[in-house]
């Protein structure tokens, strides 16, 4: 690095967080959630295939079993974080107008929280049989 480009303080360079002040955190989290997503996606597919053609009562009984509930909870929590980062990346790539960018980033956050909470609520309701 040339001397003339040393406008950043030594502390800033050591932290290496860049202009967004968050460094490569999202990049890494996207990798972590993609690795976790492989077995969880296979788990989701197996659960859905095991439920095909069954009555509502049988479906509820299977979904309420601890191992199935936990796999589905892990899938949805992992998925909403993964897709929150992914959609944010898409928005930042294509939406350049500040107003629309902020609104769509906000809508992204609202959507993943709502969808995540709805799924978690449904799974817990099935699990605890309330």
């Amino acid at each position: 690095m040339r001397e003339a480009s040393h406008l950043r303080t030594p502390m800033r360079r050591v932290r290496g967080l860049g202009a967004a002040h968050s460094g490569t955190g999202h990049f890494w989290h996207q990798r972590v959630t993609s690795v976790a997503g492989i077995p969880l996606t296979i788990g989701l597919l197996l659960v859905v295939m095991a439920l095909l053609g069954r009555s509502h009562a049988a479906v509820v009984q299977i979904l309420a079993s601890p191992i199935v509930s936990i796999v589905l909870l892990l899938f949805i929590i992992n998925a909403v974080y993964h897709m929150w980062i992914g959609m944010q990346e898409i928005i930042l790539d294509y939406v350049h107008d500040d107003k629309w960018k902020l609104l769509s980033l906000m809508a992204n956050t609202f959507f993943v929280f709502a969808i995540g909470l709805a799924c978690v609520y449904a799974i817990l309701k099935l699990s605890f049989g309330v």
Partner: protein
Amino acid sequence: MAEVEAAPATGAERARPLSPHLQIYKPMLTMVMSIVHRLTGAALYFGTLLLAWWLLAAASGPNAYAGFEWFMGTVIGQLVLFGYTWALIHHMLGGIRHLIWDTVRGFEPAEREFLTLATLVGSITLTLIVWVIGYLAMGGPR
């Protein structure tokens, strides 16, 4: 881009050269699959609405679940579900390809073509296997 061309051609505001974008390049398999990876990701984003509907219907009771099952039995429902299955499997396999590339392996021309083609062939094959097993479990198409 219109703003750039309309700017006065003096000083710092003159039109600067733009880097080439998609329409410059001949479509290649790796490039198309890169776009498809993003598209399937975006489709799955909205596809989680199906997942939420399914779980909420199951939690709500037999009538709500019957409504969900009815929709999934229609031609549109089956197409949506088939598309969701393929997008899910394709995005998973594409993700595995990207994880391999993250380790700086598989970048030779033949390797990256193989990985990309394997993603496509694998996702179509696995989707068909899942659906054949699914139909067998249902006792034939409804």
